[in-house]
């Protein structure tokens, strides 16, 4: 067998990844082939050295049993607090969004109020204005006569001196 094949089988054998029959056959083969046995042993030794080195490094440095168990308790606590933290973050976020939207809404309303500065009242058409356009025709004369016969209705002022009217007056003065 090729050296690479022998070495791969040697690693599998050392790792316990060969089945029982496979291992028996492999060892029988090595027993009959000293040179190949040498290759296999060489690789098995490297396997064991690697295992020992990692074991020594990772076992001896173990700080003791206590640390991870303390951490476990912390872990469960951390998970609990993390869930609470998520909820708290959601509430804070929602509040922030509420304030932002509310503020934006107020600002846009204020803009609308401010824009009243440039507002000009609609021009009211009087009967005399209409006369220029409609006088002289049959239906036009009838309409003008009807309009002139109607009494002028004036809207009654709603100002009753209440809090709301005072506020509106105050805002008007401010603007």
């Amino acid at each position, binding site marked *: 067998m090729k050296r690479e094949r022998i070495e791969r089988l040697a690693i599998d054998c050392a*790792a316990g990844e060969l089945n029982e029959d496979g291992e028996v056959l492999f060892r029988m083969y090595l027993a009959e082939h000293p040179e190949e046995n040498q290759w296999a042993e060489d690789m098995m030794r490297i396997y064991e050295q690697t295992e020992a*080195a*990692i074991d*020594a490094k990772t076992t*001896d440095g173990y*700080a003791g049993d206590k640390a*991870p168990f303390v951490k476990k308790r912390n872990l469960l606590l951390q*998970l609990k607090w993390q869930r609470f933290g998520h909820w708290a973050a959601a509430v804070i976020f929602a509040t922030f969004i509420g304030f932002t939207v509310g503020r934006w809404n107020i600002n846009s309303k204020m803009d609308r109020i401010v824009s009243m500065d440039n507002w000009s009242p609609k021009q009211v058409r009087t009967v005399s204005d209409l006369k220029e356009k409609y006088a002289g025709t049959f239906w036009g004369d009838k309409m003008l006569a009807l309009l002139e016969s109607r009494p002028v209705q004036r809207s009654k002022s709603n100002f009753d001196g209440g809090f709301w009217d005072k506020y509106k007056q105050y805002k008007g003065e401010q603007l």
Partner: protein
Amino acid sequence: MTGAVRTEFEQFWTETVSKVRAYMFCACANWADADDLSQECYLRALRGWGQFDGKGSRKAWLFVIAHRTRIDWFRQKKRKKAAVNLENINELSISNIGSYTEQTENVWVAIRSLDDEQNEVIHLRFAAGLSYAEIAKALGIPVGTVRSRLHRGLKAVREKLKEQKNET
């Protein structure tokens, strides 16, 4: 979390924590980081405890998480294992003087100089104690690839040891 799940998790923790810590230690070469990484790994495992599909062993499932945790850590720290501080290794060597030998140190240095793929397989095999099938599941690769990476890794370790011997 129900009491049964909590007990089950605690038992699982007890059985696997030393392996997970060892696996993490191989990546970062210091116990403080290894503990943080292990904690993060178990936190993720606890969150996804109910999502285990029952295929393969719980241990292999845990090491899938551990592997991802390690990758995230590497990304976060932008730290290459090749750039591990040698002073750190020396510190560890002194603290581990009990069963420490020069050969252990040489092999350790040789392992750490391997490429990521070989290193990962070697760590999962020797530090975590996983079988080929479990390593394959943890890394999402075929068993044949695990076998060849392990072989190439150990061959590389042998070559490094030879080089070290020749240098001295």
